[in-house]
């Protein structure tokens, strides 16, 4: 079935976040790696404040899709509009979008030669042209929020994986983004560190951040997502609210996938 372009449905027990605006609109997106058709006719509309979890087997194009949103990957056809700005080859538009879209990676991608504080203040100082003092205040605010202000003067290599990922979240938040993309944020973590990162993400979601999360953490999806997008072979196979998605998967491949990951 075609993915529906539906707005965040107000779910029981949640503050209703009726459509305040379209955060991301993807229309007819196609991408190829050489001859390989990685993304096939992707259509997805994300409203401001909506939390989307994207899941699917590895190689299904989930990461590639969200990496297209901040142009870490180029697309060959279709439209991506982020916060009213259409993504084209225009460098200024790419810059504009990257300023407003934060990203958290599977392998953190912190800068090992800079302290935690410097990691967090780098972009505010050099991209937003913020005075250093102000950038440090903001960084400290977000480091407190991810509960590691005491690590500010350490280097990333001195922190545990979970702490590093929380720094990465803080670093992205320091740019005060409107949208956060998470690319398998817990997949490279030791099991005992997954929870601290997920807790941070849950808090972020509760504050109303627009989030697109590629993850295999189905517990998180159930708890936080407004919608779950299931992808396979570069296509969106099924999207639905979590309750329906888990209780009544409609597509054969969704059922197969859920059968494999939910034992």
């Amino acid at each position, binding site marked *: 079935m075609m993915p529906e372009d539906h707005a965040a449905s107000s779910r029981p027990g949640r503050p209703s976040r009726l459509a305040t605006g379209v955060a991301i609109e993807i229309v007819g997106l196609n991408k190829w790696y050489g001859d390989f058709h990685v993304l096939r006719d992707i259509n997805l509309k994300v409203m401001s404040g909506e939390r989307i979890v994207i899941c699917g087997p590895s190689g299904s194009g989930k990461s590639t899709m969200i990496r297209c949103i901040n142009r870490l990957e180029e697309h060959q056809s279709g439209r991506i509009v982020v916060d009213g700005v259409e993504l084209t080859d225009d460098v200024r538009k790419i810059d504009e979008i*990257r300023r407003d879209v934060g990203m958290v990676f599977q392998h953190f991608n912190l800068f090992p*030669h800079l302290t935690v504080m410097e990691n967090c203040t*780098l972009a505010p100082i050099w991209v937003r042209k913020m005075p250093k003092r102000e950038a440090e205040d903001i960084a400290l605010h977000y480091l407190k929020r991810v509960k590691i202000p005491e690590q500010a003067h350490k280097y990333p*290599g001195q922190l545990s994986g979970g702490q590093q990922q929380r720094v990465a979240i803080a670093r*992205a938040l320091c*740019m005060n983004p409107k949208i956060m993309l998470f690319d398998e944020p817990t997949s490279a973590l030791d099991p005992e560190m997954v929870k601290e990162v997920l807790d941070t993400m849950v808090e972020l979601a509760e504050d109303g951040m627009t989030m697109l999360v590629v993850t295999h953490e189905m517990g998180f999806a159930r708890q936080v997502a407004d919608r779950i997008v299931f992808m396979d072979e570069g296509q969106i196979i099924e999207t639905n609210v979590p309750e329906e998605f888990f209780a009544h998967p409609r597509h054969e491949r969704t059922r197969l996938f859920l059968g494999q990951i939910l034992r």
Partner: protein
Amino acid sequence: MRRSAAEHETTEIAFVRRTPLAPQPPPKTMTGALGWLRANLLSTPLNVALTVGVALLLAFAVPELVRFLIVDAVWTGEGRDACLESVQHREIGACWPFIWERLPYFIYGSYPIPERWRVDLFFAMLAVAIAWLMWLDAPRRDLGVFYAFVVLPICAYVLLHGVAAFGLPVVDTVLWGGVLVTLVVASVGIACSLPLGIMLALGRRSRMPAVRLLSTVFIEFVRGVPLITVLFMASVMLPLFVPQYLEPDKLLRALIGIALFASAYMAEVVRAGLQAIPRGQYEGAMAIGLRYWAMMRLVILPQALRITIPNIVNTYIGLFKDTTLVFIVGIFDFLRTIEVARIDPKWATPVTSTTGYAVAAIFYLVFCYGMSRYSRAVEARLAAGESR
């Protein structure tokens, strides 16, 4: 008793530790001088053999060196007779009076004697620049960079070449020589090759085909040609293409030749470093909104240059020694001044050449080993800072 026995019963499946084990000191053979000897000199039979071999070599070479350079050396004298075995009737080592007398020539070349204070001032300014840049905790290192790359070159030109309007008579570069030339050529090469090399390396990895092609062609062309050829081309062929009045100074031509030559090698060194930086670092930098130049300057290059410090210094050391090749285009660098002096009939003795070359060896060794040690110290310090 029974409980303790049960605790160590290996066949029992369930085990609960009741007495925590305190950490014990390592065995004596691992620590102290003995431990060091075992670990570093005598760990395997091959290592033992190598240790013995090196010890024998040192036992042979060191006394000989000490004998020649110090014990049997001649320290004072007024000419070749002081260093002649047939006159002195004793074993003769190094002929130091020869060095003392020709030392000003080794340092300044034929630079006019009344103007040599200008060279001394330049040496002092160069020393300040080097100290400022090399001392990592120095105050205002940004100012140090400005001083070294803007103030110093201008002052060096005014001082060494001279500007008549400032009351400093022009000294033609033909008269320059010795340590002066070696240091000028080496510092220009060192100061230019890294920035140029970085630009070429970035160019070679650029997404713009024209930039990439130009950089690649330049690097491959320069690397494919011996330095001597570059110098010959700069001094012999350039005048054929450039009108007489535009023709740059001979030393300047050699400087440009060496700087370009070194930068091609540096480009490949830097490129290796750039390639070692994981893709995630680029993506992390782009995702937070850094543009190309900011990303390179703040994220990629600091890491890439750090891992290539050993190779950068390797290139620098090679460059420092390659400066001796400028003699083939008629420039009197330090080694060339020794070459000239050693055949001076006033000091012609069997030990004169050996003494001169020994001094040259010590000079180059001090500079090159100094660079090497400094780079090790910087590496250790950067590694400690990040403790990865």
